């Protein structure tokens, strides 16, 4: 092994060798960058344009006049502000409940000793593969009989239920790295079950919590099927449903529609620009362990 390194040193090679044809690689990569970004760029520019610019004079250029009134219109006529707040409430509550319930369940499932633990764990893991469609009609009927459609709970409860399996799995993989000795020494120092959970486990699980929060955020913030069916009252519409309604009723003027799309997209992109690495790691954690 040592010989290999000297071989590298003699040849002046780096640990990760550069490619022979970086130009071709760059052309391919830049082409794909454009494929990814161009539609978004176009969306941003037409959100600031008037129809006659969008429809002919200036299709892909930057807007001649920056029409921020489109955003005002999307907020006032399209009610995007309200939908934004609704989405934030639903998503926030979903994240909170998912994190709390999944963390508690995960501790009981991985660290505590009781009969039927294995089976309970397997049942929860089954939830990973069950598509959300499977439950839509019964959940709708339950909600309707409880007169709970058109409320925040109508979305928060199912979103939390469907996020639990993934959250428990992610927490489980993090919890496996916490040595049991830590809990044992806390126990000797006089901690009870709850003391150990809150004082030892919880602080050590913070990175896992942010991973789960990110994962749950993306699911709840973007979910459409449940939201479209359970919510008909405009007071409780989330962003995806709001956008659907706005675009359905507002077909001729593209500017405000573009503005609404941008309003829904900016927060995600803003958060992403600050913590892209963490977000990517979270999604990897969610996939690979499944």
């Amino acid at each position: 092994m040592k010989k290999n390194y000297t071989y590298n040193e003699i040849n002046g090679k780096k640990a990760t060798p550069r490619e022979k044809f970086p130009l071709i690689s760059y052309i391919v990569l830049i082409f794909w960058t454009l494929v990814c970004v161009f539609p978004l760029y176009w969306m941003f520019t037409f959100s600031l344009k008037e129809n006659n610019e969008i429809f002919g004079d200036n299709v892909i250029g930057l807007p001649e006049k920056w029409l921020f009134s489109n955003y005002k219109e999307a907020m006032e006529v399209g009610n995007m502000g309200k939908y934004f707040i609704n989405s934030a409430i639903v998503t926030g509550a979903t994240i909170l409940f998912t994190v709390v319930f999944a963390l508690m369940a995960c501790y009981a499932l991985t660290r505590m000793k009781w009969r039927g633990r294995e089976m309970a764990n397997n049942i929860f893991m089954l939830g990973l593969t069950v598509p959300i469609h499977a439950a839509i009609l019964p959940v709708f009927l339950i909600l309707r009989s409880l007169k709970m459609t058109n409320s925040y709970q109508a979305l928060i409860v199912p979103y939390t239920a469907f996020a639990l399996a993934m959250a428990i799995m992610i927490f489980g993989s993090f919890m496996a790295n916490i040595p049991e000795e830590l809990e044992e020494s806390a126990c000797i120092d006089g901690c009870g079950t709850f003391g150990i959970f809150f004082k030892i486990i919880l602080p050590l699980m913070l990175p896992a919590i942010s991973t789960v929060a990110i994962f749950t955020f993306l699911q709840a913030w973007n979910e459409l099927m449940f939201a479209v069916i359970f919510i008909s009252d405009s007071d409780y519409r989330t962003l995806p449903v709001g956008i659907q309604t706005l675009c359905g009723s507002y077909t001729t003027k593209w500017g405000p529609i573009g503005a609404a799309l941008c309003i829904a997209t900016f927060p995600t992109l803003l958060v992403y620009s600050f913590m892209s690495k963490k977000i990517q790691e979270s999604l990897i954690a969610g996939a690979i362990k499944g």
Partner: protein
Amino acid sequence: MDKIRKNKLAIFLFIFPAAVLFIGIIIVPIIMSAIYSFHDWDGITDMKFIGVKNYIELFTSESAGFPKTILNALLLAILSVFIQLPISLALALRISRGIKGERFFMTVFFIPVLISTVVIGQLWLKIYNPRYGILNVALETLGLDSWCHTWLGEQETALMAVFMPTLWQYVGYHMLLMYAGVKSVSPDVIEAAKIDGANGWQVSTRIIIPLLKPVIKICVIFAVTGSLKAFDMIYVLTGGGPDHASEVPSTLMVSMIFGQSRYGFGSAIAVSIIFLCFFFAIVIKRCIKTEEY
């Protein structure tokens, strides 16, 4: 310590909320769906038990068109596995092998994954707009007027037109998973291959891709089950139309249940979707054999 680990009250308190939600929202509804699927029911009048008639209708009736939706979903699955995944793999291999701007490309390629499908769908509605959409405008400026279509309105083009954005959106996701996989390949192995005289292409095809098999398996499972479950993009773009040309199982399910109040029949579709997802996941797991490294 054992006493603490066996604290019954704590176990109950810890597991209770998650269990209630899980049973109430997932387990019980699935059982209910399965029961409904054996009944004829419109949600108002009494349920009538009809045995497996819903399933028979599902797979034989021309007018309901369920077999065609499965074919559409499978077509999407095939396209994802044979077009989307290779693109993702190629991109992942390119950027993971030490190129300048690695993080930049990584970050940008992943952006479409994060954006809500509704936003992407509405955006592509505009791109496909027959008069002002950027696609037809581009074709016209290139003098290819004859290539212009009412992309989402014509029977022949609608299906492909709804699949394109779906494939486009998730390239970044698969790329991310594969990128993570490539990064976890030990540099020593690659180094050793290089010393033995392997070039970049050989390192990719003979060393990295075989080691990437477990990740590729996950990607294939996601691509196939994701295709069977696909809903958002198709709902936004065409709602399954024109005349069911772009219908997939889940859009058909929603229109049966909430459009035509055929609760029993719709539930049979729901059960079939679950069954197909499980079936394909198991088949793929069997087909792509992986050793533990």
